[in-house]
């Protein structure tokens, strides 16, 4: 497929052409931060940004999502209404490679096993990701350590490279290529453009200074469930949910029923939940399998770096660095990983809890 060029001032045109058919989600500036929102005016699009505060998973897996609605006769349910908006087509514009990769992880997770989460998967299927390379990754980024790259394009449908006043447009999937063909007004890219894009990719890679060695981490984690290190890494943790709520791969949710005050109807919704809250695992009997910070912190790390590799043969982290930036007590994931890697193998001791 040929590589095309989209001028930055043509983004509005792109929006105009696609917004009829698609819900157009793009980064906008909101309350001082960047967020992905469904836009109604191309002027809202923020083109100059690192990454969003809340990951774009909130487009396909929003913090509060209706599972179904129901009508009652005052006491009993008489009718259940399924979601009807799942077939709407979405364009996710300006997604960074790490977040695009997170969609891949989320898809694997929601499709895993005998039961599929149709709500997520359908929306995912109807979404077209126009990703964009990271020209200047942040110091907290470590995507190259988790099999990613600031210019990784595998998980996108269309890949953009910011060349200053224009974007290099490359179709990746069939879906993406078809869309590019539809946009006949796109000009062709010159050789200089593609060379420049390559240079930018190299430059971006060099800018990533954080290198984590995750080759053995999952094995080390498997045999060190009861290690002393967990006390150390959870010592100053407060037990808030900022790391997990802002994590592009965290998927846990809670289910609640809501009733309309004035009409005989209601809905069952899911809201984000996090393993960092003590109520997350609390049984009605009062027993709590993960009763303190140590266990909860451990669960988060193990889930991403041990359970994900065991279950899906993938690392459950995309290296976006959001949790590092937002942790109120600066409990740095990079430090934790390094500490884990430094655990000395214990041969004589049988580790158990």
């Amino acid at each position, binding site marked *: 497929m040929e590589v095309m060029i989209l001028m930055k001032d043509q983004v509005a045109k792109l929006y105009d052409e696609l917004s009829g058919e698609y819900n157009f989600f793009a980064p906008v500036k909101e309350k001082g931060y960047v967020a992905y929102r469904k836009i109604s005016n191309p002027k809202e699009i923020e083109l100059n940004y690192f990454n969003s505060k809340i990951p774009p998973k909130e487009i396909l897996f929003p913090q509060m999502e209706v599972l179904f609605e129901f009508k009652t006769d005052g006491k009993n349910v008489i009718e259940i209404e399924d979601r009807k908006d799942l077939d709407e087509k979405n364009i996710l514009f300006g997604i960074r490679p790490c977040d695009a990769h997170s969609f891949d992880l989320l898809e694997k997770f929601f499709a895993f096993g005998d039961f599929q989460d149709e709500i997520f998967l359908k929306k995912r299927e109807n979404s077209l990701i126009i990703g964009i390379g990271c020209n200047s990754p*942040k110091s907290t980024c470590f995507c190259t350590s988790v099999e990613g790259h600031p210019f990784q394009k595998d998980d996108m449908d269309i890949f953009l490279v910011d060349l200053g006043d224009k974007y290099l447009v490359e179709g990746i999937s069939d879906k993406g290529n078809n869309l590019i063909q539809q946009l006949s007004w796109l000009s062709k890219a010159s050789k200089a453009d593609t060379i420049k894009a390559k240079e930018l990719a190299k430059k971006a890679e060099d800018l990533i200074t954080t290198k984590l060695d995750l080759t053995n981490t999952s094995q080390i984690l498997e045999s060190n469930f009861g290690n002393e290190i967990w006390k150390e890494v959870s010592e100053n943790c407060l037990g*808030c*949910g900022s790391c997990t709520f802002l994590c592009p791969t965290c998927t846990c949710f809670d289910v609640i029923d809501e009733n309309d005050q004035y009409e005989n109807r209601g809905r069952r919704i899911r809201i984000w939940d996090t393993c960092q*809250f003590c109520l997350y695992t609390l049984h009605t009997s009062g027993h709590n399998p993960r009763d303190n910070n140590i266990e909860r912190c451990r669960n988060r790390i193990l889930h991403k770096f041990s359970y994900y590799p065991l279950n899906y043969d993938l690392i459950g982290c995309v290296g976006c660095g959001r949790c590092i930036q937002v942790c*109120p007590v600066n409990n740095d994931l990079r430090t934790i990983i390094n500490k884990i890697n430094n655990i000395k193998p214990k041969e004589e001791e049988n580790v158990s809890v």
Partner: protein
Amino acid sequence: MGDIESENQNIENKIKELARNLLREKEVDVIIGYKKGTVPLSSSPVFITREEDVDKLLWNNLCYVNLANYLAPRIPTLYDEEGQKLKVGIVAKGCVGRALIHLAVENQINLENIKMIGISCNGIINRKRIEKEIGEKEILETSILGNNIIVKGRDFEKTFPFDEYMNELCKVCKVKSPPNVVDSCVGECLENPVIEDDFNDISDFESKTSEEKWAYIKDTLSACTRCYACREVCPMCYCNLCFVDQNKPIWFGKTTDFTDIFAFHFNRAMHLAGRCVACGACSSVCPMGIDLNIITRKLEKIVKERYNFTSGMDKETLPPMMSFSMDDNQEFMLEED
């Protein structure tokens, strides 16, 4: 004293010296302080048990977490192998001291096990404001130079006057060092402080109409993701089961619908009346950068004006919500015309 930079150096040296002494004399088992954060505009609470680690401690105007939180009963980490409570030394700026004293008033901690390493806090940087003003550029390094905050990035450098970019609460703070009660404080502390405050900083907001206030509150709070970082970092939020988590009955929803967000923040504010020690940690840690400071100030103002109370100043005065008087003001009660 000189500028902020040299003040910081003095404070830091003092912390290290006192901490080293406390550990050497075995007066405490563990020191809770701050260490350098791994990202700019941050610091990380640290637990130090060995004298040689004392050099990790620092003071850099980014020590925004209220360390008293680690002594509140919800986080039971400070026990030895036999389950005995450790004796704790704690780096205490004014608001940490106030929090400790207030927790003692509420019978949550025993000040006898605690040594405050009192310092005269020279203010905390409003990191959310700097982050917002820098915008979509990455901050790689921050430092204090003279009386300025220097923020450096890949291709920029910006100077912020410290006085202006302090936390709003620090600008009006009257309790820089911990009040000294039951001789639990080493280092700098206040003896019998008397607090006068005019609360001019929120009078602008108070003079707004209901609709304006509501619009502001709605705009500010609607970014909330209910991660509860504000609650978890608050030394006064030590309930085992917070009201938002209660499910028998379910008082308020857990969703991010504004009504539920409002219910959480309003009731939390209500619970902090006469208890909040104005440390500003909640605003400093909010991942969405929500500024809860005006609410904090209003709470202080209400209890000061109505009940002449300032939280965490001494061990004897009961907080307003734990006491009452026949002569309380009741101008708000409905009366016949």
